């Protein structure tokens, strides 16, 4: 494959007309917005910020980064970018696995989907060509069955199947795409956009290809430098030695619990106490772990494959028990049964849903049920059988599930109690309580896609994982820190490298690899400038879509109800103070990008 020609082969698919055209992205867009996340946002802007998310006019963009599928470590990522039916913001979500790499090896850099097909279709990609084919045989099927269907039709070798499940078809607002059974475009409801377009799957067949058009020696050198950082035993990415590699992301459960930053019972508490151990990475590793799968070009292997050995789900074999869903469906729902957590994650993988949003929808409904605010049967804390039944009902929009399929923010609003939805801009919070990790709270509030831990992973500094180390309970200085993380991640999401690369690499490593791949000079300062430009482009889109001053908020529970548990006891999030700092370093007027900032950054 040719690295330096990235952006020349963008497939434009009009589902309504049945047309496919392959043409280059504008050179200026690639220069300014790099690829994947940044380039995708620029495309989505073309449909206009007022577009209805579930209308044919919304664009659904699957975009590789310039490093996707290359020999670079942790480069098995691609982005899905669209206007979110959950938040009304622009959103991007990223998958691991091999689908993005195979798209590159098949000769395409991205797929821009518009319109709505008259009947269910899938896209088949091979040898630089893309075709619309009939998907009526798999419409209504779960993702596991859909993957098996296409593997039978096209063979397993070199095949990636990226599909939506029943939740996408019923337009559940937090429906997710999954490839190879378990790697998700998880957040923001991108699969509902697929469902609204009658697009069931993208099937890609392509064998491995090597980069041909780079300075081989320079390419080897910069990749080696990055790999050495990843392998360094002092970094958590170190294969088979670092905590992320040995235990996966769920290595976090016990530490956030210890410091009072593990939201429990819909974030009414900040610790799960002794019960956290039962849903932790340490417990999984000792009791149910059976494998360590990985993604394209990744030596870390953070995915954790498990098998349930007893109880009602005995024999369930699935991946991956991650920290986020283990928290959302565990502590957050007062559930310490890891087998049921694995079962519900697998349901999400099959039905095609975001388990973070699901866990928050369930916990919100549990609190509402406890307080007598629901009309149906309600849901009791930690009732795993009822949670599993409700998960299925949500995906199919049956009974009370129809309400919760709207997401916790809309559902709580309909129940008359929006205050019990733990969400920012309509998207539910992840697994870091803002009272115990202050910078993460600011990151949630200022994220351009709604509450998100991956826009600014300040926890790396607040938990002392990288060289920059800060007190998690101190609010001062977090404004500038959040901006740096947001800009750096906006760039790496556009390359598209795994977010976890930032535990070992920084702007220098990103710049060196991108410079060789593009065949042009590129510095660490250029990395931060491009990241800032992409972050401001997203904010510009959101401003035009109606998110103005006062739109960067946290649920009042985090700013008014002090933590009562060790580590964060007595603390709330000092959001207003942090926002003042943040807007100052951003050069924004409140939550709005001013004209002079747009001009300075050459936006759009």
């Amino acid at each position, binding site marked *: 494959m040719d690295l330096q020609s990235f952006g020349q082969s963008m497939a434009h698919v009009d589902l309504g007309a049945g047309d496919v055209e392959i043409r280059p992205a504008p050179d200026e867009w690639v220069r300014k917005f790099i690829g994947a996340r940044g380039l995708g946002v620029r495309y989505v802007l073309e449909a206009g910020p007022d577009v209805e998310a579930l209308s044919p006019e919304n664009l659904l963009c699957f975009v590789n980064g310039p490093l996707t599928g290359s020999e670079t470590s942790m480069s098995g990522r691609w982005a899905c970018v669209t206007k979110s039916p959950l938040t009304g913001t622009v959103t991007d979500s990223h998958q691991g696995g091999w689908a993005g790499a195979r798209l590159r090896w098949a000769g395409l850099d991205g797929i821009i989907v518009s319109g709505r097909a008259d009947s269910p279709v899938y896209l088949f990609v091979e040898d630089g060509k893309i075709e619309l084919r009939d998907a009526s045989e798999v419409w209504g099927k779960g993702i596991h069955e859909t993957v098996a269907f296409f593997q039978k039709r096209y063979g397993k070798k070199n095949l990636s199947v990226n599909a939506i499940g029943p939740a996408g078809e019923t337009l559940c607002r937090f429906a997710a795409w999954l490839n190879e059974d378990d790697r998700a475009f998880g957040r923001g409801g991108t699969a509902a956009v697929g469902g609204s377009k009658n697009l069931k799957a993208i099937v890609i067949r392509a064998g491995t290809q090597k980069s041909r058009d780079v300075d081989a020696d320079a390419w080897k050198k910069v990749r080696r430098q990055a790999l050495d950082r990843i392998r360094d035993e002092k970094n958590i990415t170190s294969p088979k030695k670092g905590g992320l590699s*040995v235990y996966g992301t769920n290595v976090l459960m016990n530490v956030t619990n210890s410091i*009072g930053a593990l939201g429990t019972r819909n974030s009414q508490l900040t610790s799960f106490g002794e019960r956290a151990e039962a849903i932790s990475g340490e417990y999984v590793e000792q009791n149910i772990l059976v494998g360590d799968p990985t993604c394209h070009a990744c030596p870390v292997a953070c995915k954790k494959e498990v098998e349930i050995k007893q109880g009602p789900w005995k024999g369930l074999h699935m991946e991956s028990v991650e920290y986020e869903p283990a928290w959302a469906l565990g502590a957050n729902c007062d559930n310490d049964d890891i087998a049921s957590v694995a079962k519900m994650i697998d349901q999400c993988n099959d039905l095609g849903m975001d388990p973070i949003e699901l866990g928050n929808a369930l916990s919100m409904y549990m609190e509402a049920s406890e307080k007598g605010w629901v009309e149906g049967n309600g849901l009791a804390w930690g009732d795993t059988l009822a949670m599993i039944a409700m998960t299925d009902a949500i995906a199919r929009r049956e009974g009370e599930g129809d309400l919760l399929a709207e997401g916790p923010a809309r559902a709580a609003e309909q129940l008359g109690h929006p205050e019990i939805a733990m969400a920012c801009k309509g998207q539910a919070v992840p697994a870091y309580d803002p009272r115990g990790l202050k910078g993460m709270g600011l990151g949630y509030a200022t994220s351009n896609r709604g509450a998100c831990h991956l826009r600014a992973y300040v*926890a790396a500094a607040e938990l*002392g994982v990288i060289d920059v180390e800060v007190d998690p309970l101190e609010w001062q200085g977090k404004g500038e820190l959040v901006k740096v993380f947001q800009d750096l991640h906006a760039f790496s999401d556009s390359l598209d490298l795994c977010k976890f690369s930032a535990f070992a690499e920084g702007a220098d490593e990103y710049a060196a690899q991108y410079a060789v791949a593009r065949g042009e000079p590129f510095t660490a300062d250029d990395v931060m400038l491009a990241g800032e430009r992409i972050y401001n482009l997203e904010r510009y889109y959101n401003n035009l879509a109606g998110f103005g001053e006062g739109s960067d908020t946290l649920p009042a529970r985090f700013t008014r109800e002090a933590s009562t548990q060790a580590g964060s006891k007595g603390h709330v999030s000092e959001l207003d103070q942090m926002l003042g700092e943040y807007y100052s370093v951003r050069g924004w007027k409140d939550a709005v990008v001013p004209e002079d900032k747009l001009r300075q950054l050459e936006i759009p």
Partner: protein
Amino acid sequence: MRVNFYATLRTAVGQKTVELSLPDGSSAQALAHEIARRWPALADRVVDAEGGISRRVHFMLGGRNIRWLPEGAATKLAATDVIDVFPPTAGG
């Protein structure tokens, strides 16, 4: 005092919880040296070249990393204290 080990440190120690007998009022730094003495394989992970607490380990007392407490590594520990000991951990 009771010391709970997590993640890769637990693997090295062989169990989650260990009772260590240190004089009342011992410092967190003294605890680090005791851990290094009991489990030599962990020595360079808990004690740095200058004899201080390594940056590759986090001691949590009452949920607070002792690094952020006013006396830092000199923080005095009581015999009844429970200390959680973590290697660097993150993910997401």
